[in-house]
């Protein structure tokens, strides 16, 4: 006989993957509770992408003192600004520690929609170049799945979220279900043609594949090119939980969404070896209560899900929870100027750039490192920002500000990080957050392989620009980015083929506790160099369908 539970399924987190779990589980007939640690979001009230700078107290420069006092870590995210700062957590309420000489940025978003409101929206499929990589290189553990296992779920996710992109026929960056691509500007088209002439199919430049609509899609309007997507989108033109998956889940009548619900731990029945529910602290009243459910999906973000497992002291017989933290290394690249096209300009703010898929270690072996990196970037003409410190006053200065600068183009690398069990988050022995929940101590650093990748980015980016005829080419002089800083943290409860060396099986299911699934970035066995959210979403949808089958068969 089945116990009576509050819900069929409990989903922890309402962001990128929590929204997908909510949609799939409710559409498959489950009464589903979604727990969100932060506040509710109302697009009409909270999305501020059209609020002009002159309506902001600091006109876009941000509240420097408030950020220094409360968001000194979150403020380092590329999409943190005076408008969007409310979509990141308060660092004082949500502390964590690192060794003093090894900073790690843990960017966190606690509100309905999580980081899906502030994400970069770049979506790229993985291929077997990625899924076979650990096996080939004898690094970490082998992925328990291959491209064929996830390809139909990429289709499933892409059809719903809407991805604009250009099919290129590359085996290592498979094409998807694309809406019409966004347009390249004149210089990007020129560079694409010159690269094709110079590198053939080895180094391809394509328009970014982005979860912004270029045509009406499932009731959502196409992008109107205002630019700052990370401040929200009143026309719902990019994919987020708030814009798409949560409304779909709501439409089933089986969704219960509970904001201000901070999950402390899973509740365990040792006799049945099942999780029976989750313990929640009300973020406002700080009182706690338990919700019961037949299955639990952890979608709280990679490190938060690991933290919940560690605080539960469950699902960790492998001792791999919290280990193998990965991110993508950045800040290698180059920029250069292009002469000509002075009679041409860009109109509108395209929320997307160009993409150069990985070209290292695809065919030929690179002598200095394994794996590789991709470039993102774009071309444009400088505007008033370039004149902020220009000499002159009066009418001449004003004329200078209204002039467009020369065309320039930049490439920025996103490099793969290898899994290492020493890159690890553990429960802090004493430090708790404002809700009394033990927080994390995070130790994470780049290895020689990532640093070699970072060095090569600047060399290769300069080569690309040179092949396209750029002038004044400047390779990046920046050192490697801070781990975590790309906000692609993942790997902290990895999938694998063996319960002794991994936390999850090939269905994102806990080896130890069969009714617990972890489908956010924690599940990743390697990091690839592609932006990872699409893979998280596909894994989530796949795991939901598996879980419901298992539930119906009485196996959970």
């Amino acid at each position: 006989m089945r116990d009576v539970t509050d819900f069929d399924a409990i989903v922890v987190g309402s962001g990128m993957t929590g929204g997908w779990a909510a949609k799939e589980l409710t559409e498959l007939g489950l009464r589903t509770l979604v727990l969100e640690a932060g506040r509710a979001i109302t697009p009409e009230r909270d999305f501020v992408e059209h609020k002009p700078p002159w309506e902001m107290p600091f006109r876009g420069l941000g509240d420097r003192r408030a950020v220094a006092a409360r968001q000194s870590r979150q403020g380092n995210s590329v999409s943190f600004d005076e408008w969007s700062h409310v979509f990141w957590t308060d660092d004082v309420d949500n502390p964590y520690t690192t060794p003093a000489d090894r900073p790690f940025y843990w960017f966190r978003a606690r509100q309905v929609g999580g980081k899906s409101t502030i994400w970069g929206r770049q979506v790229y499929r993985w291929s077997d170049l990625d899924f076979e990589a650990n096996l080939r290189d004898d690094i970490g553990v082998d992925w328990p799945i291959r491209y064929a296992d996830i390809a139909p779920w990429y289709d499933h996710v892409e059809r719903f979220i809407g991805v604009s992109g250009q099919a290129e026929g590359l085996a290592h960056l498979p094409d998807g279900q694309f809406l019409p691509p966004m347009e390249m500007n004149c210089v990007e088209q020129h560079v694409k043609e010159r690269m094709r002439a110079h590198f053939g199919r080895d180094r391809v430049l394509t328009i970014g594949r982005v979860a912004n609509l270029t045509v009406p899609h499932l009731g959502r309007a196409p992008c109107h090119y205002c630019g700052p997507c990370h401040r929200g989108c009143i026309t719902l033109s990019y994919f987020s939980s708030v814009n798409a998956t949560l409304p779909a889940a709501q439409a089933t009548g089986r969704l219960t969404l509970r904001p201000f619900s901070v999950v402390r731990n899973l509740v365990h029945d040792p006799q049945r070896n099942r999780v029976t529910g989750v313990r929640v602290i009300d973020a406002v009243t700080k009182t706690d209560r338990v919700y019961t459910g037949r299955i639990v999906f952890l979608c709280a973000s990679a490190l938060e899900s690991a933290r919940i497992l560690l605080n539960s002291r469950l699902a960790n017989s492998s001792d791999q929870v919290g280990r193998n933290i990965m991110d993508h290394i950045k800040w290698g690249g180059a920029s250069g100027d292009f002469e000509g096209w002075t009679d041409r300009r860009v109109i509108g703010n395209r929320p997307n750039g160009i993409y150069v898929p990985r070209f290292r270690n695809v065919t030929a072996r690179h002598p200095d490192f394994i794996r590789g990196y991709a470039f993102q970037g774009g071309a444009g003409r400088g505007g008033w920002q370039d004149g902020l410190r220009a000499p002159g006053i009066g009418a001449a200065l004003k004329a200078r500000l209204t002039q467009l600068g020369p065309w320039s183009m930049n490439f920025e690398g996103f490099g793969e990080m290898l899994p290492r069990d020493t890159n690890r988050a553990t429960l802090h022995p004493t430090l708790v957050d404002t809700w009394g929940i033990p927080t994390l101590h995070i130790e994470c650093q780049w290895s020689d392989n990532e640093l070699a990748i970072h060095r090569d980015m600047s060399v290769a980016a300069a080569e690309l620009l040179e092949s396209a005829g750029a002038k004044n080419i400047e390779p990046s002089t920046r050192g490697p980015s801070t781990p975590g800083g790309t906000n692609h943290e993942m790997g902290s409860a990895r999938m694998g083929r063996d319960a002794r060396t991994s936390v999850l099986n090939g269905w994102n299911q806990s080896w130890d506790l069969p009714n617990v699934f972890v489908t956010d970035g924690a599940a990743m066995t390697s990091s690839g160099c592609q932006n990872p959210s699409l893979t998280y979403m596909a894994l989530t949808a796949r795991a939901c369908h598996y879980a419901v089958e298992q539930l119906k068969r009485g196996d959970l």
Partner: protein
Amino acid sequence: MERRELIQWLVATAGLQALDTLDASDLLALGRDVHRRGAARALAPHAKSNVSVAAERILPGAGVAGVTPFIDKMLADWYTPDERRRFLAGLPELDARARARAGVDFLACAEADQIAVLTALDDEVTALRAARGNAANQHWFAMLKYLTVYAWCTSEAGMRALGLFPLPGRYDGCAPV
């Protein structure tokens, strides 16, 4: 703002001519606006008038763009105490240089003299930048000019002049200039 200083400011910035184009409700709104703006937090009345006039000379239209209240807000709530002190300590140079040049305070001297004073300061900052790079940004006049330019470029009037507002609602990657 004091009435005397308002008149000085209007004379100094040719604002009186602009008043001719306003109707009664605009004038009332302007009066309320001036009154509201009178509550400066970091800039004393005289300093505020100097900033207003200097900003208008640096970028004609700065007054309409709300540059002075923005600078006051930045000084009060954004800059460090050191930065604020550096700015406020430097600002009286406007009067000192105007007196040396024309025998009267900055607000009282002719437009050409005001421009000459500001041009000399700008040239000095440019030379400093050539010698010391971004360290020149610490100069009080570099702060004043940066804030003026930034505030104008992020104002409605500025963004309209720069073609950044209203938003076009479309993308064209290769449009004619």
